């Protein structure tokens, strides 16, 4: 008892905590300097972009559209998550499902999803449904593939252990396979949420012109570099926040994974 009771002196890992803000600050400074020096329309300095952003926020352009976009994102990502988990789990568990869908899922993962935009339009019209569909094509397949391979790589001996205690197929799925597969599934979900943001913007740019996609399209059409980058900053912030949220959930769900085997992304 005595030996373990000695608590190691803990130092706050400042170096690690500060790396990201510091790195962003350096990047911002470099951007400002290069932007000032280059003085071209397509690469305005950060200050100009921020000023433009403030202006766009001021006239309500950003917030009004942001809400709209977030609804598309949440719906699309929600469907991707459910669909990705179900299809992925089925592919991971049943060889026949994998045989039937595997190639196509890979093809869809790597396909330039944008070319499907007219199909969605034809099937679903210009409303929210089409944009949500684009979000789904961007986000779902990476979740499917990670889930499938996560399910496949669940250690066989855990399943056997459960069987030895008389676990049913359902118990094996929910008590063994899903928790064991969680870390890898979450890695896919993290990639998926980033892709969902891209899909959201692309859907809003290439089917119905709404939301933030509309704002960025218009700025791009005017070759308003500061405008494009200002909206892009918002989009990146949304995406990073979404990824951060997923990571927080991930950390909660996978606290049990030993530090050493916890690879980042």
């Amino acid at each position, binding site marked *: 008892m005595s030996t373990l009771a000695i608590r190691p002196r803990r130092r706050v890992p400042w170096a690690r905590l500060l790396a990201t803000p510091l790195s962003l600050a350096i990047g911002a400074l470099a951007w400002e300097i290069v932007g000032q020096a280059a003085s071209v329309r397509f690469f305005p300095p950060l200050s100009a972009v921020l000023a433009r952003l403030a202006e766009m926020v001021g006239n309500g352009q950003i917030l009004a559209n942001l809400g709209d976009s977030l609804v598309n994102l949440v719906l699309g990502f929600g469907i991707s998550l459910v669909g990705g988990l179900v299809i992925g789990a089925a592919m991971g568990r049943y060889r026949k499902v994998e045989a039937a869908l595997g190639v196509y899922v890979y093809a869809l993962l790597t396909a330039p999803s944008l070319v499907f935009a007219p199909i969605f339009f034809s099937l679903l019209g210009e409303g929210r449904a089409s944009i949500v569909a684009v979000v789904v094509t961007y986000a779902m397949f990476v979740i499917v593939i990670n889930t499938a391979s996560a399910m496949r790589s669940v250690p066989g*001996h855990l399943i056997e252990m459960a*069987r030895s205690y008389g676990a049913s197929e359902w118990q094996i799925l929910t008590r063994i396979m899903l928790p064991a597969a969680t870390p890898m599934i979450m890695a896919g979900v993290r990639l998926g949420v980033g892709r969902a943001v891209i899909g959201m913007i692309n859907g809003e740019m290439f089917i119905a012109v709404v939301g933030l996609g509309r704002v960025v399209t218009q700025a791009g059409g005017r070759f308003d570099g500061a405008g494009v980058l200002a909206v892009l900053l918002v989009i990146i912030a949304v995406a990073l926040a979404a990824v951060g949220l997923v990571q927080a959930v991930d950390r909660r769900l996978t606290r049990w994974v030993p530090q050493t085997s916890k690879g980042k992304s």
Partner: protein
Amino acid sequence: MIEIRGLTKSFTGQDGGVVEALRDVDLDVAENEFLTVLGPSGCGKTTLLKIVAGLITPDGGRISIHGEPVRGPGEDRAMVFQNFALLPWATVLDNVAFGLKMRGTGKAEREERARELIATVGLSGFETKRPGELSGGMQQRVGIARALAVRPRVLLMDEPFGAVDEQTRRLLQEELLSIWEESRLTVVFITHSMEEAVLLGDRVVLMSARPGQVSEIVPVPLERPRSSDVGGLERSPEYAELSAYLWDRLRGMHAEHRPAKVDA
């Protein structure tokens, strides 16, 4: 109580080749016996144990426990796995209670029982830890507690101490023996280690490979209870003699199977 007759099992490998894992195995295990199984790698020890556990269906032969044919995993048996097979996301308490949960025991009862077993294996205070925070030896105690928690009549152990370091292994051996001496379970214990086979077993089953067969069954003349001083046992002449005999037998089997050259 366990009666095995003419058991055979072959596997078709991924490359299409057929491996005869067990051929015509006959074996009887008495009530309360501690039977150890020793044999070179790949001789079918695990296959045999899993057939007893009901996890693998044999191709031929009969196996019954108390006269009841084995048809699948049953409440009378519990297995302790070589690589522990603990759920890394679950606490020690939940791991120990896992078997009870699968069998539908209510929450209060299974936690009480789990805490009891955790105390038995000397892990009180670790209930809320996860396997990743435990040493190998502590992990295997959890595996043993999980198996004991379901009150099996037969405990099947597949090289349970193979992944544990020497010193911890000795402690676990002593503990296992004292648990067994108290509860008088029937134990089938697979090991790679001669010493272990001799120290623990009432009889040692020697298996040979390709195909997997029982080549000899050696009774162990060491006195019981042995749990109090495993280290001391090693100094007895019976122990030395028996382990030398087994080593000779095994070395022979091993050398036979060490390939001098392979065709690539």
